[in-house]
């Protein structure tokens, strides 16, 4: 039997299920308040999204609100990490993940404008809004993701362990 450190999970966090229900509740509340589900990429590039249930707001406030939503996610995650005692500056020690992150982000940015919508706004938001677009984007997103993952893994395998300065341990950690 696995000897996890905490509740069989190995960490002090929530269960996946708790997160799922929490996020679902948040989506429903947000939709009730604004008239649309939560979206990320549109706010990242400063599009003033009009929310049907928010009586006509100036586009300035909408852009600000969007930026704060995005910043809030980052801050909330930081809060969560601090709460769990896991916050740490994590610097990449190799270049392949950095390249993959940059290119991957770029592709996500482009795809999100075509679909239109990212995985949260388009797929999750679309499916829960009973919109066909969400399902269609979802199916192809999964297909694309599998291809992307295979690509990333092949790329990692090729670039070897690409450890610059392997053997340097900047952090003191308990070595068994």
């Amino acid at each position, binding site marked *: 039997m696995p000897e996890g450190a905490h509740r069989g999970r190995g960490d002090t966090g929530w269960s996946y299920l708790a997160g799922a229900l929490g996020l679902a509740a948040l989506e429903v509340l947000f939709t009730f308040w604004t008239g649309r589900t939560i979206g990320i990429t549109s706010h990242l590039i400063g599009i003033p999204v009009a929310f049907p249930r928010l009586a006509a707001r100036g586009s300035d406030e909408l852009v600000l609100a969007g930026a704060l939503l995005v910043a809030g996610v980052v801050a909330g995650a930081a809060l969560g*990490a601090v709460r769990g005692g896991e916050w740490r500056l994590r610097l990449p020690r190799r270049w392949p993940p950095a390249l993959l992150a940059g290119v991957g982000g770029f592709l996500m940015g482009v795809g999100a404008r075509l679909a239109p919508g990212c995985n949260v706004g388009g797929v999750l938001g679309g499916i829960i809004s009973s919109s066909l677009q969400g399902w269609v984007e979802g199916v192809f997103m999964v297909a694309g993701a599998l291809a992307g993952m295979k690509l990333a893994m092949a790329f990692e395998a090729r670039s070897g362990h690409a450890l610059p300065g392997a053997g340097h341990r900047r952090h003191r950690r308990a070595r068994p």
Partner: protein
Amino acid sequence: MRYLDLVDEVCPVPLLRIQEALREVPAGETVVAHLGYARSVRNVMEWAEREGISFTVKDLPGGVWEITLCRKPRGGGSGGA
């Protein structure tokens, strides 16, 4: 004992490296890895449990987890390491 410092690796690298190490290491020998993301820890734990590989997890301060895995040798001595 094989040690892997995977502290700043993001998914799926930790699992891939651990799988690789367990393949290379003879049965009965342990692989110890330091991971930096709880998500990766859960990932590896779930995989190891499915594969019947025994493991223990230590939650260290500062967002580091230490996981020790050991593939049990097959009984009966069929084929040597």
